[in-house]
């Protein structure tokens, strides 16, 4: 693989994630050339609060990009385009004149804006917000955080109204710093703010009124693969040609370009997204209507998203808090010591039940215990909990969209767990496929950037880069599936409404601590 210095056409991607910031370089064949990453500090100053330092994240970008270049023996001249993927809904405000952050990064996990959202709901705006933005008002999205900052940071609102303050999600912060002052966001990130109109893909003036947001603070919305300006710093002269939220980047990296194509990323939680085509499917049953991606001059492609709060984190919990296994992968070895769950079911409703059930009063349960049940059965039921939660989300997506995916493309750390992947195929009754390179978020940012820069001519060229590394076919007979589904549903019923039975003070905080 001797590539001459003149023939190098590398695409860079930056993945600004919750835990770390990474830079990956890819060649024109879509192959990883190098990877550098750096973790940043995560602060939890109060219960429910979660923060990063925006300056630290920017300084990490300034380290990891040169590191990735030097590992590849490359210079910025070898890089034809940069794409950015980022943790969604996390946001920050800064001073336009100096670029100095005026707040910490308030992350997607942070619930401090609950009060703002309660007021908006109490004022009866829920339906209007849902109709305009496709998503319900929630402290999970960015607008509530910006309103909280305007209410709380001294002098911020006055300065914002005078146009001195810039607001942005993480890609906006990085683009500002890389280009030296371009204030831009992409449509997938903007679709997670509660402020963008899902039909016009512009800031919605009614929503700006509802959340009382000065438009002067907001970045301009661009397509996913679009011209975001040229880097002045870190990669001087390199154009930024794509930006997108991390889950949408994974959808793009899995090349789910056809209606009905779906991906699920199995990490701490799990995120399922299905391409629903050029018309958004309204949010229902806790599923979220969101923009999948938008290419310049083409209609946007929408996605329906279902998230599972507790997936890999349940395995971490039985590792760290229960001591069932020493390492997360060993849950599979333990589960394979038995041939079924022995009648045991785990419902990991650590902070309530999410899509499609939505019950904040629910808490986790382990049911079906008998003297027969061993640690192996418990390990099986831990894995089955992730499979059943995935099945429920996929079924809800089918109901709401009328689309049944033909297969499920998976990525994330848990995809090396063959027992889990087989179980997912079995309970979904769908083939499950893992692509060769599981860093789909970074791949998606690079694909979008390379597409925009002409490294790849069209979506077909990207489709051809997708390579199957493993696949699992459904093997469970329908009678077993129906019986197990009924048992799972029965177990979930036991988890519901738990807090109603015992409203002891402090219990809520304890439960939150388990997931934090």
């Amino acid at each position, binding site marked *: *693989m001797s590539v001459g210095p003149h023939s190098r056409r590398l695409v860079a991607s930056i993945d600004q994630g919750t835990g770390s910031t990474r830079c990956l370089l890819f060649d024109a064949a879509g*192959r*990883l050339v190098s990877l550098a990453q750096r973790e940043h500090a995560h602060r939890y100053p109060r219960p429910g609060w979660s923060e990063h330092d925006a300056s630290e994240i920017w300084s990490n970008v300034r380290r990891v990009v040169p590191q990735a270049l030097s590992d590849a023996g490359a210079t910025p001249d070898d890089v034809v385009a940069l794409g950015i993927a980022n943790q969604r809904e996390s946001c920050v405000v800064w001073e336009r004149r100096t670029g100095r952050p005026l707040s910490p990064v308030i992350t997607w996990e942070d619930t401090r804006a609950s009060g703002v959202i309660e007021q908006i709901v109490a004022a009866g705006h829920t339906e209007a917000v849902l109709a305009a933005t496709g998503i319900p008002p929630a402290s999970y999205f960015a607008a509530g955080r910006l309103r909280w900052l305007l209410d709380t940071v001294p002098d911020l609102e006055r300065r914002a109204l005078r146009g001195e303050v810039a607001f942005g999600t993480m890609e906006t912060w990085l683009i500002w710093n890389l280009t030296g002052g371009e204030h831009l966001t992409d449509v997938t990130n903007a679709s997670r703010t509660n402020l963008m109109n899902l039909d016009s893909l512009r800031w919605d003036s009614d929503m700006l009124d509802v959340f009382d947001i000065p438009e002067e603070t907001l970045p301009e919305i661009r397509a996913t693969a679009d011209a975001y300006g040229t880097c002045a710093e870190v990669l001087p002269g390199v154009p930024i040609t794509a930006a997108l939220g991390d889950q949408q980047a994974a959808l793009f990296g899995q090349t789910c370009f056809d209606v009905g194509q779906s991906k699920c990323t199995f990490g701490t939680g799990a995120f399922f997204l299905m391409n629903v085509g050029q018309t958004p499917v309204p949010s229902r049953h806790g599923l979220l209507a969101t923009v999948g991606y938008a290419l310049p001059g083409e209609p946007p492609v929408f996605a329906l998203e279902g998230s599972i709060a507790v997936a890999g984190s349940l395995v971490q919990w039985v590792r760290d808090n229960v001591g069932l296994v020493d*390492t*997360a*992968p*060993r*849950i*599979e*070895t333990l589960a394979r010591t038995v041939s079924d769950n022995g009648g045991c079911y785990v419902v990991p409703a650590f902070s309530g039940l999410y899509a499609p059930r939505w019950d904040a009063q629910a808490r986790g349960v382990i049911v079906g215990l008998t003297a027969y049940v061993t640690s192996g059965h418990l390990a099986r039921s831990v894995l089955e909990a992730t499979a059943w939660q995935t099945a429920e989300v996929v079924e809800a997506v089918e109901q709401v969209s009328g689309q049944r995916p033909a297969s499920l493309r998976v990525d994330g*750390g848990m995809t*090396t*767990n*063959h027992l889990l992947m087989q179980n997912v195929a079995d309970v979904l009754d769908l083939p499950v496929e893992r692509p*060769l*390179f*599981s860093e789909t978020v970074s791949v998606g940012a690079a694909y979008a950037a390379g597409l925009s820069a002409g490294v790849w001519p069209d979506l077909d060229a990207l489709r051809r880069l*997708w*390579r*199957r*590394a*493993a*696949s*699992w076919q459904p093997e469970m007979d329908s009678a077993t599936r129906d019986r197990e589904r009924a048992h799972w549903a029965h177990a979930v019923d036991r988890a519901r409404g738990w807090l109603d039975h015992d409203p002891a003070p402090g219990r809520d905080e304890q439960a939150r601590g388990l997931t934090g």
Partner: protein
Amino acid sequence: MSGNVQSVERAASVLTVLAGAHRSMDLAEIASAVGLPKTTVHGLLATMRGVGWVEQDRPSAGYRVARRLSGLATSLDPADLRSAATPWMDRLALDTGLEVHLARRDRDVARLVQHVYRPDNTAQRLRVGEALPLHATALGKVLLAETTGAEPTADQLETFTRFTVTDHGVLDEELAGVRAEGHAVETGEYYPDLHGLAVPVRGSVGECLAALAVVGRRDEVLERGRAASKPLAALVRAAGYVSRSIVGLA
């Protein structure tokens, strides 16, 4: 000074042999494996037992590496191994265009721990958990050459194709070659159309923990009947990365 170095080297070679074994070994076996007189090996074992590097279940029983020291080969969980190896296996498949296998010794078979498809999107079946014959696959020959276990008897050298080696003498000679060259070659001995190369994945004391292989058509893995240099180099590099990722897991 040189005498001290030699005894350290000898102790290390004894440890490596013991660490690669899936069972305890007696003095005669160890002496024969490291090619030293029994008296010398006995002295080395007594010293290492004294410092807690080697254990015996009871006096006169066989020797094994102390659990606290290593025993990676026996204590390394297959799921941990798979989790650590998969990114490097993916990259090896992408770099070579070949199917990639990872296997561990499971008594008298090579057990597939992870399988990455040939990256051409053709229909393939996941073979994780499958048992491969030790004497008729590249993976198996690496494990046979580098680890100790139930050795196949003459009547266990099953014939799969007309290329399968079923003569113990010929097999032993080939295994000596594997140890000398550091890789094994498979040329249609299990399935007539399948050819492959395999190398050991080593632990912290040089013991063989697993074997990593690329599998493809004859012209993809062989040059004039020998391992083709490009896929072999990629394979050796990947095995090194896998080793580094798993050392310290157990």
